[in-house]
């Protein structure tokens, strides 16, 4: 083991000086500062878009449309979806990757630090553009986060500066940011690994970041093309999608889903990586089937580009297309299943340290399994015809995005917070957070599946009275989920300033990021380490010493 802790460079990293916080508001090119900028900005958007969701859940407590007017309701679900995906999950994962990929591969920074800062600083304007649309005459975009034409071309205010145009602009800026970040990640991971860090010695988090960013690289241009054409239809009276002008609205759907389905894998792959990091550390066992887990990420990445039309089984798709995409969509379950089995086998026979991070890690596997199973059902065309565009899909998607991505992000924060701040989070409050979160999310999203099976269509602000009981349960879960962010928020704020000192390796984890100080100095390593073994050698190599490991239960 390298002892880098004694040879600090770049000042006194363990103790941030009082003026230190200011660098988080600066155009810093340090990947660690940028990582935290991403995470914190994302979390604010998460709280805001979560608030939108809670207003929607309040509206759905009663069958009548009596809390917000219908235009506002439509605006809320549109902004909720757009902000959660582009403003929270993508940035939060980009933040984690930004912070930890260079550390995990033994690099001093990302390949292009200035580009990295630009990628981040494109986000606040994009988010502000979207939020600004609440104040333009026609209000925000109201056609859902898919913005299917022709409904997205309606522009009821008739004003050139309208919510839909701002939505397109905001999404385009998010897209540019994503592409630049993707270039940076791919170059960093492929060309900047430390000596000895061969592909099959990379931690799974690095693998999943690489595959997710490759999807971004080739996928984001598709959605950019889709919304650019939409913009011209909206403002320049072109006829790409507008049937009234000779266009074809289905082309938009193809372009949009060609990216937006793989986008789900962009949101879930890095959290697969997080769980593959967390489970071995706290089970004190190597990751079961490391190579198959790594290869399955690549398979998911490739397959994800051939499944998009399963979102369009009830659009005007012909039979052959329905069948082709049914088979590919089911096939992608195989590499995903391999991962779930591998994680289960990893904790089997382990010596589990049930920390907050481990709770979120196991919780991730438990909830994501459910998402995967309902995903197979949705791939089966006859079932999908019944449940597509119903709450079944909403429930399924949120099991992926919340039960999967958000739970994974929480796991990552509980696991890596000591590295990022040099201080421990409070474990008990972490576990309270976990249980509130876990109960809340199941209460919120399980009833949605049943509502969908009964035939409740998504995106409606009033509904048949027969759907009310389950909607009430769902709303209670939603409010509980809102409450669950409070212990987390206070825990983070309190621990960041007053928490127990973490030391460089509180969990006695293997992995390059734990060989440097917490937080790591500028440029990360005094000496670039040479890697000589596999990433998860628990039980095979000497574990880091117990002393200086305050994370042991």
């Amino acid at each position, binding site marked *: 083991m390298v002892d880098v802790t004694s040879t600090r460079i770049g000042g006194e990293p363990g103790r941030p000086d009082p003026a230190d916080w200011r660098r988080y508001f600066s155009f810093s090119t340090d990947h660690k500062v940028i990582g935290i900028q991403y995470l914190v900005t994302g979390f604010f958007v998460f709280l805001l878009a979560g608030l939108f969701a809670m207003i929607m859940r309040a509206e759905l407590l009663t069958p*009548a449309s009596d*809390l*917000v*007017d219908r*235009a506002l309701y439509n*605006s809320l679900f549109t902004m909720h979806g757009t902000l959660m995906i582009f403003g929270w999950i993508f940035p939060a994962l980009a933040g984690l990757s930004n912070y930890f990929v260079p550390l995990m591969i033994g690099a001093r920074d990302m390949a292009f630090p200035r580009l990295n800062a630009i990628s981040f600083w494109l986000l606040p304007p994009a988010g502000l553009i979207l939020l600004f649309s609440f104040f333009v*005459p*026609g*209000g925000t975009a*109201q056609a859902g986060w898919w913005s*299917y034409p*022709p*409904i997205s071309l*309606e522009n009821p*205010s008739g004003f050139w500066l309208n919510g839909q145009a701002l939505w397109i602009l905001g999404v385009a800026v998010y897209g540019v940011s994503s592409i630049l970040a993707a270039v940076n990640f791919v170059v960093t991971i492929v060309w900047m690994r430390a000596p000895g860090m061969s592909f099959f010695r990379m931690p799974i988090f690095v693998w999943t970041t690489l595959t997710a960013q490759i999807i971004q690289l080739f996928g984001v241009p598709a959605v950019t093309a889709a919304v650019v054409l939409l913009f011209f239809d909206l403002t320049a009276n072109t006829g790409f999608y507008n*049937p*009234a002008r000779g266009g074809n609205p*289905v082309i938009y759907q193809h372009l949009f889903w060609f990216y937006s389905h793989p986008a789900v894998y962009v949101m879930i792959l890095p959290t697969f990586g997080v769980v593959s990091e967390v489970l071995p550390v706290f089970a004190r*066992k*190597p990751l*079961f*089937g490391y190579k198959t887990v790594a290869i399955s990420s690549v398979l998911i990445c490739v397959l994800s580009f051939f499944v998009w039309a399963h979102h369009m089984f*009830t*659009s*005007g*798709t*012909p039979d052959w*297309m329905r*069948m082709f995409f*049914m088979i590919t969509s089911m096939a992608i379950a*195989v590499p995903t299943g*391999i991962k779930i*089995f*591998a994680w*289960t*086998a990893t*904790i*089997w026979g382990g010596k*589990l340290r*049930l920390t907050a991070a481990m709770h979120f890690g*196991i919780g991730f596997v*438990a909830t994501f*399994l459910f998402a995967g199973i*309902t995903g*197979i059902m949705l791939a089966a*065309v*006859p*079932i999908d*015809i019944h449940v597509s*565009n*119903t709450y079944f899909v909403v429930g399924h998607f949120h099991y992926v995005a919340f039960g999967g991505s958000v739970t994974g992000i929480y796991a990552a924060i509980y696991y890596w917070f000591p590295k990022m701040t040099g201080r421990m989070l409070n474990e008990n409050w972490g576990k309270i957070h976990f249980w509130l979160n876990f109960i809340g999310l199941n209460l919120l999203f399980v009833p949605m599946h*049943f509502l969908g*099976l*009964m*035939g409740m*269509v998504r*995106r409606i602000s009033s509904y*048949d009275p027969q759907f009310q009981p389950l909607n009430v349960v769902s709303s209670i879960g939603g409010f509980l989920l809102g409450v669950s962010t409070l212990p987390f928020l206070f825990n983070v704020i309190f621990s960041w300033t007053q928490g127990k000192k973490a030391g460089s390796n509180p969990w006695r984890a293997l992995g390059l990021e734990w060989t440097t100080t917490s937080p790591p100095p500028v440029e990360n390593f005094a000496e670039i380490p040479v890697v000589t073994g596999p990433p998860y050698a628990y*039980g095979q190599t000497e574990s880091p010493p117990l002393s200086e490991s305050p994370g042991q*239960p």
Partner: protein
Amino acid sequence: MTIKQNLTIAVLVVLDALASYWVGQTSQSWLPPQAAAEAILVDDLFRFLVTIAAFIFFGIEGTLLYCYFAFSAAKGDFSDAEPVEGNIQLEIAWTVIPVVLVIWIGAYSFDVYRQMNILGPMQVVHLHLPAGVEPAYAATPEAGNPPDEVIEVEARQAAWSFRYPAASQVTSGELHLPAGKRVRLAMRSADVLHGFYVPDFRIKQDIIPGRTIDLSFTPIRPGRYRLYDSQFSGTYFATMTADVYVDTPQAYRQWLVRAGAGQVPAPVPPASKIAEPSKVLNSGWPTVGPSPRQPEGR
């Protein structure tokens, strides 16, 4: 492995199978009544999928729960676990079994879809091919049952209307269908995307403006059902519903006669749907209201 371990596993697998069989049988109660022949096919597939899903779900969640309690490290135990890196046989098994399962599910779903045949022989040509190619489709002889009834459906923002060529082109605001006969809906949209969705029939189809989209199915269970718009279509999207009646053949014929005489409820005037409860929060944003145009033919 010892005999005892093998036996325990066998017992657990049997228990899992029994539990998932029970869940599969329950799954019918999660769904609305089977009002069309297609619903029976879909529900059978759903029951099959739920049974398999429950088996996997209980199996893995049970294992996770067991690990959570059984493998928790004792206080003060800082040692590492036995370093099992993998197991080739196990990994092959959990790759091959899902592959086989996926092929099975895929084949079954394909078969069910083929039997449903909802797009019918006059299948939607997804991307209208150049004029020269299209007749090839039209020339295909109609396979299976030719539809007994053709009804024209028109969707416009927040309103459905149905026209019966069999009853001298009368237009109605509610959809009447004869039980036991294969019907074909010829669907058009006057403005944006809409979706025809009757949960009790288990069928759904988007309606794309500028095209006529055919949808065939066989209603079987007389009763009153609800038609929803399933593709977001604007501010008053949630109000875009209509009543669907599956009538016995005699009742249907009588209805057509009455309809021919003009004694049917007119399409609901969309404007009346805006009478809504007052809201707590009003944005005051301009909206595209329900289409003021009355459907043609009346």
